[in-house]
């Protein structure tokens, strides 16, 4: 085991000390863990690690090959960037959740069997849900519960598929699926849900804009891209994915026209961009899978940069609707410039990262004689620039001056954005290191004369259309109906029946806790206080403090605040992982 340090354990166990560290040291520690994670990923050797048996089934904790390494590399880089962006936070909760989230994503990426995969898959859902709950307020908590509900349902579907599949093939090893059966279709459905493929996309655009400013940055990177990874591993060359991917590339773009919330607009563009990856995996040729993988790599960096830019605006102004923003370029020029680098990268301008990755997917579709896919994906590229490169920055930073009091965000936010921006340009200018990481040898030259002029033609004439029809694009004070309508409206009928008994039960429980549990906890806390007062010397003082803190924490368990419950779940998850780690050894 010495030759392989599992980066998932590094992050999950690394999350444990965070709440106990004081601020200056905590910040150093927070940066150190992702750096170590990156080091672990960069130095790891391909092979199989942690093969064991569980309930008579073969388990493979970590399988390291080129496909898993490329995803793990960008996950580790993203963990570093996201952590730097969140360094100013004073409460440790979000850091803990983010580390567990990153760690479990890495766990999925290295999982060699379906049971390990499923375990980390579920942890991911709970840890990321915390980042929504942590925002607080009725809207975020509602969105967080819907997010959890959808992912738990998806998890059950996935588990059902895994069991059926394991039964029919006799193995739980996570390898490319041969024949499609009922089990594999369920697994595919579970994967497609996390990839936000319509009609299973609404959880993403519902929850991401409600997450905290820093949490949304992590969320934009990990859940959908682990789904892209598992699809690339298990379902390359599945024809259905070509059409789902192409449709979702356009689906996201259409909704982005209608959207007024800046981060929800960006969330619809995650749907659109993941469409390219899903389509590439569906095409399934070496070039297409390379394209999908490299596009996922580039996407994580530029999309997080865009979310960081929009997050900075929300952080500074407290506003999120395009109809309420405008004129910020004077007070936030650096944010504008960094955001625009992300916008150029997602739009695939030459010398930005999207140019060298997205074109590989489209070229692979062309080589596979899929004219319709080429045309649809090219149209979606036009829409991408139209929204993230033109509409959003125009209404957010330029446009009508709303006379908002604004300033540049804290330095750590700008540094994180600059890191992502530097990588967006570096990949665009020097694509070879990224190409070398890809699962198959790359025989593709993005910088040909006709490709450059073609891309510029598409993009700049999109800009012409934008300028000519600017007024038609004015954001409106509306929300858009998506497939979450079915469970948001459908749930009403269900709730009508459930509300009364549930409310009564809730009442009974809280009565019991108020009469029995609370006084007990209060007494415990008071006892802690008394010990603190009585004992004067330093050593005893420390113990007393921790008892007091423990009493406070116990009391907080009774508050009914949902973030605390979510935190408790994460603590449980960490404990489970520790047990797993011990059992593994």
């Amino acid at each position: 085991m010495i030759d392989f340090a599992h980066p998932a354990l590094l992050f999950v166990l690394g999350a444990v000390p965070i709440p106990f560290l004081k601020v200056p040291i905590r910040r150093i520690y927070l940066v150190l863990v992702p750096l170590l994670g990156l080091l672990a990923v960069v130095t790891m050797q391909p092979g199989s690690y942690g093969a064991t048996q569980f309930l008579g089934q073969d388990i493979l904790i970590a399988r390291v090959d080129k496909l898993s390494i490329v995803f793990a590399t960008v996950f580790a880089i993203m963990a570093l960037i996201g952590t730097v962006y969140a360094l100013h936070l004073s409460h440790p909760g979000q850091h803990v959740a983010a580390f567990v989230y990153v760690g479990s994503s890495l766990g999925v990426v290295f999982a060699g069997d379906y049971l390990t995969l499923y375990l980390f898959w579920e942890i991911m859902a709970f840890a990321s849900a915390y980042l929504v709950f942590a925002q607080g307020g009725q809207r975020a908590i509602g969105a967080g519960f819907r997010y959890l509900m959808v992912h738990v349902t998806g998890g059950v579907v996935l588990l059902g598929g895994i069991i059926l599949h394991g039964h029919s093939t006799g193995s739980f090893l996570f390898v490319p699926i041969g024949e499609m059966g009922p089990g594999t279709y369920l697994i595919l459905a579970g994967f497609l849900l996390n990839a936000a493929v319509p009609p299973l996309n609404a959880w993403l655009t519902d929850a991401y804009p409600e997450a905290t400013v820093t949490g949304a940055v992590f969320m934009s990177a990990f859940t959908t891209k682990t789904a892209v990874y598992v699809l690339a591993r298990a379902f390359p060359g599945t024809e259905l994915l070509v059409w789902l991917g192409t449709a979702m590339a356009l689906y996201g773009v259409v909704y982005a026209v209608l959207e007024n919330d800046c981060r929800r607009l960006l969330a619809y563009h995650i749907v659109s961009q993941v469409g390219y990856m899903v389509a590439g995996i569906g095409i399934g040729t070496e070039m297409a899978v390379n394209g999908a993988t490299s596009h996922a790599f580039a996407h994580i960096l530029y999309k997080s940069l865009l979310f960081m830019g929009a997050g900075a605006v929300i952080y500074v102004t407290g506003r999120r609707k395009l109809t309420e923003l405008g004129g910020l370029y004077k007070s936030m020029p650096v944010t504008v410039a960094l955001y625009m680098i992300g916008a150029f990268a997602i739009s695939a301008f030459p010398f930005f990262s999207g140019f060298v990755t997205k074109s590989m997917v489209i070229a692979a579709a062309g080589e596979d004689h899929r004219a319709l896919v080429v045309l649809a994906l090219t149209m979606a590229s036009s829409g991408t620039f139209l929204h993230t490169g033109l509409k959003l920055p125009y209404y957010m930073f330029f446009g009508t001056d709303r006379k908002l009091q604004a300033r540049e965000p804290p330095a750590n936010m700008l540094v994180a954005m600059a890191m992502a921006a530097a990588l967006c340009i570096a990949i665009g200018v020097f694509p070879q290191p990224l190409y070398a990481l890809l699962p198959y040898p790359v025989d593709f030259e993005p910088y040909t004369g006709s490709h450059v002029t073609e891309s510029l033609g598409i993009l700049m004439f999109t800009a012409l259309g934008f300028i000519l029809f600017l007024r038609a694009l004015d954001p409106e004070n509306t929300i858009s109906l998506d497939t979450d309508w079915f469970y948001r409206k459908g749930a009403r009928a269900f709730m009508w029946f459930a509300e009364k008994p549930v409310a009564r039960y809730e009442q009974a429980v809280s009565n019991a806790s108020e009469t029995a549990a609370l006084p007990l906890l209060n007494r415990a806390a008071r006892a802690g206080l008394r010990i603190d007062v009585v004992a004067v010397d330093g050593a005893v003082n420390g113990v007393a403090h921790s008892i007091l803190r423990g009493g406070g924490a116990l009391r907080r368990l009774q508050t009914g605040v949902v973030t605390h419950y979510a935190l408790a779940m994460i603590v449980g998850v960490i404990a489970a992982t520790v047990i797993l780690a011990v059992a593994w050894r």
Partner: protein
Amino acid sequence: MIKRVVDFFGEERYASQRRRLFYLALVLIVIADFLVPREHTEYLWDRLPGWSAVYGFVSCVLLIFVSKFLGHQGGLMRREDYYD
């Protein structure tokens, strides 16, 4: 430096300069598209110089108006308190 570049795109007084630069860029791109060598042509449109400009513009206009049509006439856009 960054501030000056950003200001160039924001300030009203640079508007005409911006417009002239933009149209110049459009013309240059189309001219360049006629001049570049095209060795690998798979589809009909690969051989048409200026195709990408037309397709980009048409895509943009289509996306704007089809989406807004779906939003307004198709009933996708609702008041903000729709779910409350």
